[in-house]
């Protein structure tokens, strides 16, 4: 089955038609998507700034990371679900869009990066000790903030 057939099949499905026909669905879903972006970006930036030693340096790293990581995970799920609704509504526009696929690649990359630098701190046993000494945590925390910004840029550029 070729990609055009898949796109045509999604487009013709009742769900896709409903998303396009109900005029309130897309703006509502996009609003929820932006609120979830704010949650994931806010939680990521605050904990990345802690990892970089800029914010709340007097609070233990593990405590800050543990406080915000569940919010990042929950927001990611909301983002994937609302994003999926937008893809189903306009598969002919989104699935052939290079920026969309770049964004998807970057989302996987940045969330994997964010998870990798937090993982040693999320382990119950590692509570007392600091971050993984093998990784350049500060540099990776800044890189992760920068990548989230690129993801947001890609998201907006999909529409153009």
């Amino acid at each position, binding site marked *: 089955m070729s990609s055009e057939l898949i796109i045509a099949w999604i487009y013709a499905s009742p769900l896709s038609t409903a998303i396009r026909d109900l*005029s309130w669905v897309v*703006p509502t879903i996009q*609003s929820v998507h932006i609120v979830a972006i*704010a949650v994931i970006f806010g939680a990521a930036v605050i904990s990345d700034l802690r990892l970089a030693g800029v*914010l709340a340096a007097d609070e233990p790293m593990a405590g800050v990371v543990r*406080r915000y990581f569940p919010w990042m995970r929950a927001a990611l799920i909301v983002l994937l679900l609302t994003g999926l609704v937008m893809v189903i509504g306009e598969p002919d526009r989104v699935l052939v869009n290079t920026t969309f696929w770049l964004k998807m690649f970057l989302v996987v990359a940045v969330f994997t990066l964010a998870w990798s630098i937090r993982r040693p701190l999320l382990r119950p046993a590692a509570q007392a000790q600091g971050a993984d000494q093998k990784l350049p945590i500060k540099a990776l925390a800044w890189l992760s903030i920068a990548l989230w*910004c690129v993801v*947001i*840029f890609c*998201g907006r550029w999909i529409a153009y």
Partner: protein
Amino acid sequence: MDIQSILQALEDTSLAAYIRESGSFFPNLESVHVIGIALVFGTIAVVDLRLLGIASHRRSALRLIQELLPYTWVAFAACVVTGLLMFTSNATTYAQNSVFWWKMGLLLLAGLNMGFFHLGAYRRIEEWDTTLPPPGQARVAGFCSLALWACVIGLGRWIGFV
């Protein structure tokens, strides 16, 4: 000079024309606007949730507010600058968009809510700085702030659909 001709003059500036015609300038403005929104709402939500009694990364509400609010303000300034530039590019059209004015109205309410909080519960913050849950007045301010900012985001997205 009436409002309409001021808006028209704004739209006729070379800056406005450049934003409209450059192709990449407007989406880049929107992207920075979204990054700003994410940081404004992301940081303010942490403070609001703390006001509602949900623990944050530090116990002291005052220190949490002092620590996060500078980021909120810088991000808000970025939103205002990018927002004004987007408005300039199509001033007369935005001025006719009722959703745009609803958004501005709710922004004003969010500002007033913050003002009331600063004149009220915030002045006695040392009494409840490390208390969970905080007093009712602080919880109301936190709830109103969360609701108002979420609506601001929703209305902002809606501007493009009317």
